[in-house]
């Protein structure tokens, strides 16, 4: 995943959850500080990015994001991540 693709996902996640604060979990989080051009291929991880929210006690936001743009969704099919 590239930095631009990560930014695209995060905008969608934030809009769907109506929450401006999104936590990026795992190896993709380094793309917040560096672009993929500055990193080895191993640092670009997979086509997925794991996100979470600081306030999401019943995982309602995460479940909504998952349903809308998660794995094997239409979003995934259209954009490839």
């Amino acid at each position, binding site marked *: *995943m*590239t930095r631009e*693709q990560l930014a695209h996902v995060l905008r969608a996640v934030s809009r769907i959850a109506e929450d401006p604060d999104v936590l990026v979990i795992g190896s993709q989080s380094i793309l917040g500080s560096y672009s*993929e051009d500055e990193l080895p*291929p*191993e*640092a*670009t*991880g*997979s*086509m*997925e990015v*794991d996100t979470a929210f600081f306030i999401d006690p019943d995982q309602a936001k995460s*479940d909504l994001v*998952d*349903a809308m743009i*998660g*794995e*094997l*969704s*239409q979003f*995934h*099919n259209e*954009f*490839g*991540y």
Partner: protein
Amino acid sequence: MACVVFFVFEAHNEGMDTTRLIATGEAARLLGCSRQHVVDLCDEGKLAVVRKGGSHRYVRRSDVLGLLGPPLTRDQEKSRWLHGAIAGHLVTEPDLVLTRARENLDRFSKVHAGTMAERWLDLWRLTLNSGLDHVLTVLVSDAPEATELRQNSPFTGILSEEERKRVLDSFRNHWHSEHAHDA
């Protein structure tokens, strides 16, 4: 559209005494490999033989499970459920599913050119050319490489939104009832 969903799940630590001894045949079943491969692991010192009875070798069940690696995370298991639904389509419409997956591989490879994901997509290409049985195994296996492959899946556009929603709802109930104590 009719859909047959099947899973090949191992129950790792559910009330089992993991320290008990098992024969190499049962070890092979747990690992999803041949008995000879288990014997080879023993001969290479990668799996300790605890006791020999006649021509039989016994190993600790816990040692065998250790070779399988840690249990899947929630996201990894959710991905396996979604791909289990894909497996259902694969056995009923193999040509359609494989064609769609190959088309997606071509599209996604352009999107992820130069990244690690491109390598996984190349590995998917090899997998799709290895026969249906192998593809089915990768779709539901909890082996580390299969788990990583599913995180870079080309199987989009196969499940309808309604079908995908049903899988996610079903998984959520499953996880809550059977894995809540893991958290």
